[in-house]
Each structure stands twice: as C-alpha cells, then as structure tokens.
C-alpha cells in the first residue's frame, strides 16, 4: 500500500510539473511575478485534479484530499512558494466594505500561495550588516550596509578569472576571449525572424522593420525598435561580472566567512549527521577561487543556505498545518533523503506531501520531489546545447560533453527551451499552429542514448582542455543567463539600453 500510494503521489506531482511546463513554454510572461503566481496556482490545481483522479477508486475526491496535503512547495530561481492552508486576515477597512454575505470573511481558512520566501541569509561583521539572496546559479543579490556602514543594494553574477581591458574593451573568461556573436534568429511558424531576448522577453523583427513580442500565443506588435546586428549579451554577462567583483571587493563582502551568518543552524542529514556547519566551516565564502565551480566554498555555502531556508520554513508550515488539520493525526515534516536534496538544490522542483491517509493498520506519510528541467527560470550548465551549424536546419545539436565535439565558426550554443515545441494562434482564425524555434535534431549518441557523452563532474575543468568549444559554450551560457528575467533590474531602463 505504501508503495502504491508513493507511485500515485509521484505521478500526480509529475503531472503538476508537466502542467507547469506546458503552461510556461507558451508564455513569454511566465517569469513575471504575477503571471508566475498564476502558473503556480494552476499547477497546484492540476496536482489536486490529478491526485483526485489517481485516488478515485478509494472514494476520495479533490476536496477530501486537500486535507491530507499539508503543503506543496514550488522551488524557483531565487526562492520558493509554499502552497498550503492559512487563515485569511482582512483589515478593518476591508471588512467594513464587504457585504454581510461576502465570499471572503475574516479568519476564514483558505488554501493558497503564501508569500515568496527568498533563499537569503543575513551576515553581520563589524559595521557590515548585509542580507544576501542566493539563487540556483551564481547570481546573488545584496542588500544592507557595507564595511563602512554605507548602504548597498546590488546584484550580479559571481565569476572568477574574468579580465576586462578598458582600453580596447576586450573581455576574457578563463583565458578565452569573449566576443559578441552574430544576430540570433529563430522560427515562428515556418518563417525565420531575427530576435533579441531582453529580460526574459524575446523581441522579434518583422519584415517591415517593426518589432513584436508573443503574448498568450498571439503577436503583440508595437515594440522597440531595437538595435540589430551582433548580439553582445554574452559579452555583457562577463563584463558585468567583472565589474560586480570589483564592487564586492570595495564593499568588503569578500571578507565574509560562513561564521558571520546569523540566525542559522547546522544542516544535518536524515540520521542527524552534520552535513554543513556554519560556525566551524570558518572560511571565506566569496574568495573568488573558482567560485562558479561545483565544489567551491561559495557553492557549498549557497546550497547549505538554500537547504536551511527550505527546511526551516517548510517545517513551520507543516507544524502550523495541525491548527487546520483533521482529526487526531499530527502532521510532521518527513526528513528528505539526500538524493532528493540533490534534485532540489540543482533545479526548479516541486515537493508534495501527502500525510494522514489510513493504509490498513498504519498511517501513510510520504512526499515526492520532481524536477522541472524545462523551465524559463534558470539556465543550468546542462541547459546549453551546441548546434553544429546554426544556419543549417538539418544540422544536429549535441551536449557539451559529446566526445571530441568539433566546433566551427557556424557553431552556436542554444538554450534547451528553444528546442521545445511552441504554439502560436492565427491572427485571422481560431486555429493554433505548432512550431519548433530551432529545427535541428538531437544527436543520437549524446543527446538520446548518451553513449558518446563523457562523464564529468566539473564542466569548467573539462572545458579548459577544449578551448574552441569553451568559447561557443561560455558565450551561449552568458547570453542566456544575461537575457533571463531579473527582479533586481529596472525593466524599463534595462530594455532602453538596447533600443535604437
């Protein structure tokens, strides 16, 4: 019974992730907060619909099952949402305005998304008092006071080994010269358009020189005009990372050690062994020695903070659930297995909990963690594929780790979402057309069967030995990361930088 229920829970969680993917792949606004919340609420609804279908036979329906689901956790790029019941609190003003028989009342128990919780940690050292928000990659946001007590509000990517020559504007990363790349193009329907992706939104150039975006599967004209020609997003990524590093040094952030973190406790595994100790691990977090590599001090610390924040908030949410819960069963946070944490900390995921169902003599208590590897939230190191010849639709695309992958001037790195099928509605009829933004096919031996893929643990070290490939890859990684939506930016000012 336990296994049967585990499978059902896994299936439903997978369905919710699938719904989230299908909803976001066709929406260029899915990274904006209000739109993202709708997508997440839709995914939560899908979860309940799916789980109701899965348990149909045993006489539970969606509303019954809600009582057994203490929380759904959607982990995203720089924080997470918890979907669970809470008490609706209305201020007096609102209460007075409501009709006596209004649907919403004060103190009513409703199920919904709780406020977004960031993966953040506070550090105090001398005069310095900062809160640093981490993300699923090497992007951080800093707010607070620097070593001289001056206010800071800054964000950027952490990269080691970037050089910038202010005289000629040359940027190198790990010894590789990063330049701008040719104009990007992709298909919409059967036609290729030049485009530029700024802050998570793709702007396409039409034949007559006007620009449009795609909103809800329809053309949305009247954008831009933007500069055409070479795309320098990758170049900007490395240049800004270089400048960010200089600023961090001037703030004194680089002197922070993990022991300066406040309000944290050691991270332990299922059996109580300490996995990460904030106090004893007394080393510099931002030492810039291979900071983006998987085993750096920064990455260890970042993962520990993310894990601590999720664990703490989640156990509070689950404990509070007992206030709303049913009957005699006391909800408790199950300890997540190490491999599940591995999944959670590396990509956008959904954790679902199902507790309190009677399974013949015992009470069911289970959880499920499902990764979402097709999303517009984060560009992981694995999300960049290398297309042999970008100008040829019959070309193939490869994983970066394809054995002896040869690249040339026409090779280009492409974000995995751009190989996903998208849809666009006709402007004249109700019909919907499906298309692939890039028509190249996946390589059989590395993408499908993975027989030719080299097994590596550190992609950066691997690429140090493959410099031509590294240039294509780093440019694409930089371009895609830089083009992502960032909360910290002023969207209007940022877009204006690229206008004609």
């Amino acid at each position, binding site marked *: 019974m336990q296994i049967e229920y585990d499978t059902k829970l896994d299936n*439903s969680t997978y369905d919710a992730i699938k*719904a989230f993917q*299908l909803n976001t792949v066709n929406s260029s606004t899915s990274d904006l907060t209000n739109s993202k919340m709708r997508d997440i609420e*839709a*995914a939560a609804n*899908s979860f309940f*619909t799916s789980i109701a279908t899965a348990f149909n*036979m045993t006489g539970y329906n969606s509303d019954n099952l809600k009582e057994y689901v203490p929380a759904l956790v959607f982990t995203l790029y720089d924080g997470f949402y918890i979907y669970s019941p809470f008490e609706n609190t209305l201020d007096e003003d609102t209460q007075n305005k409501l009709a006596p028989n209004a649907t919403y009342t004060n103190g009513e128990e409703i199920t919904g998304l709780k406020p977004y919780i960031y993966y953040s940690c506070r550090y105090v050292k001398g005069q310095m008092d900062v809160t640093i928000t981490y993300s699923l990659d090497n992007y951080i946001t800093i707010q607070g006071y620097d070593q001289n007590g001056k206010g800071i509000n800054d964000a950027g990517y952490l990269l080691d080994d970037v050089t910038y020559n202010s005289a000629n504007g040359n940027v190198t990363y790990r010894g590789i010269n990063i330049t701008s790349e040719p104009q990007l193009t992709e298909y919409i329907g059967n036609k290729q358009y030049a485009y530029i992706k700024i802050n998570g939104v793709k702007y396409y150039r039409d034949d007559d020189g006007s620009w449009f975006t795609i909103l809800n599967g329809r053309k949305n004209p009247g954008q831009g005009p933007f500069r055409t020609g070479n795309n320098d997003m990758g170049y900007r990524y490395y240049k800004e990372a270089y400048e960010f590093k200089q600023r961090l040094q001037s703030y004194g952030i680089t002197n922070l050690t993990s022991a300066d973190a406040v309000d944290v406790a050691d991270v332990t595994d299922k059996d109580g062994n300490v996995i990460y100790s904030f106090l004893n691990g007394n080393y510099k977090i931002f030492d810039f020695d291979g900071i983006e590599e998987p085993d750096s001090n920064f990455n260890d610390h970042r993962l520990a903070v993310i894990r601590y924040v999720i664990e703490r908030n989640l156990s509070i949410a689950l404990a509070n659930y007992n206030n709303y819960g049913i009957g005699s069963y006391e909800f408790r946070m199950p300890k997540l297995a190490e491999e599940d944490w591995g999944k959670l900390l590396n990509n956008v995921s959904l954790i679902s909990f199902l507790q309190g169902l009677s399974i013949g003599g015992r009470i069911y208590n289970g959880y499920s963690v499902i990764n979402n590897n097709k999303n517009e939230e984060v560009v992981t190191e694995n999300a960049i594929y290398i297309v042999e010849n970008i100008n040829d639709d019959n070309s193939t695309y490869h994983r970066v780790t394809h054995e002896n992958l040869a690249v040339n001037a026409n090779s280009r790195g492409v974000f995995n979402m751009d190989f996903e099928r998208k849809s666009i509605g006709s402007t004249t009829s109700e019909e919907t057309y499906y298309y692939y933004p890039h028509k190249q096919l996946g390589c059989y031996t590395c993408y499908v069967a993975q027989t030719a893929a080299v097994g590596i643990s550190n992609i950066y070290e691997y690429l140090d030995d493959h410099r031509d490939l590294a240039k294509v890859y780093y440019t694409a990684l930089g371009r895609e990361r830089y083009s992502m939506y960032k909360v910290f930016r002023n969207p209007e000012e940022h877009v204006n930088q690229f206008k004609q």
Partner: protein
Amino acid sequence: MGDSIITIVAIVLAAILMFVFPLMTMSDRTDDISQLTVQTATTEFVDNVRTTGKLTLDDYAAFEQKITATGNSYDIEMEVKVLDENPGKKTTQANSTKIGENVYYSMYTSQILDAIASTNGSKKVLALKEGDMFSTSVKNTNTTLSQQLKNFFYTVAGNDTYTIAAQHGGYVTANGSGD
C-alpha cells in the same frame, strides 16, 4: 459408535485441511496474478493513450482482450476530462490552453465507446489534446474461485464486492491527430 463419529469428523477435517485449504491458497494466488496482470495492462493502456493523445477501438479491444485472458470478466470504466475554455475569466492574460485554470467537462465510458465505434468499416479515433485527463478503472464482475470459496466458508464477501481492481490516470501530454 462414538468412535465412528470421531472418525467421520476426522475425515471431514482431513478433507478440508488436505484439499480445501490448498485450493483456497492456490485460488488466492491466481487472483494475485490476475491483479498484477490487470494493473500492468491498465497502466500500459492509459499511458499509451496519454502519450499518443489518441484512443482507438483497436487499443481498447487489445486492452480488453489482455485483461479477460486472466479468465475473469471485468467492468471497464473510462473517463476523459476535456480541457475547455473558461468563459468566466476576464483577465487580459486569459489563455484557453492553460492547464489548471480552466474548466473540464467529462466524457464517460459509453460516450467514449460511441466515439470510437467503427461505422461501416471505417475506424474512428478519439483525439485528445495536451492538458486533457484520461483515467480508467477496472473491476472484476464475476465471482472468482477464491471469492466463491471465501463466501462458502466465511460468508464475508458480499455479491458485489470485487477482488481484482486496477486504476490509473493522468494528464494527456500530446496532441493526438484524428487519423
């Protein structure tokens, strides 16, 4: 006299112990195997529909044949939840293809069978789309040998209870074509 009664009782007991109990155990195992077969076949059938986005009479017949090969008769209940537009939503971002926000209407077994029944030799396909839900549940309708024996000895199982049951369902992940 007393001896012969005891002998008869002993013979009856021995008969039960030697024949009926092994028979019950055997028939129980047979039901377990049937259960496993039915569960596997149901999962396969539903997942096939979910990943191809279409349901044909051939698929259904093959599935029916596979489960009846266990020697029992079954009641197959199918349900398709079709994703529909939600006319009540009036936001600028309303999107008729959004999953989880829009309403569903349901089609049940008899409607589904009508939709895929072949007319004049031409085969029909029920095409589903991304975001629809498909689920199937199967229960045995005959009384299996194990149920009969249990009914006889324990008189616990009622007439309408089933011992073999399987259920599977979930989202359709592909747009099926009608041909």
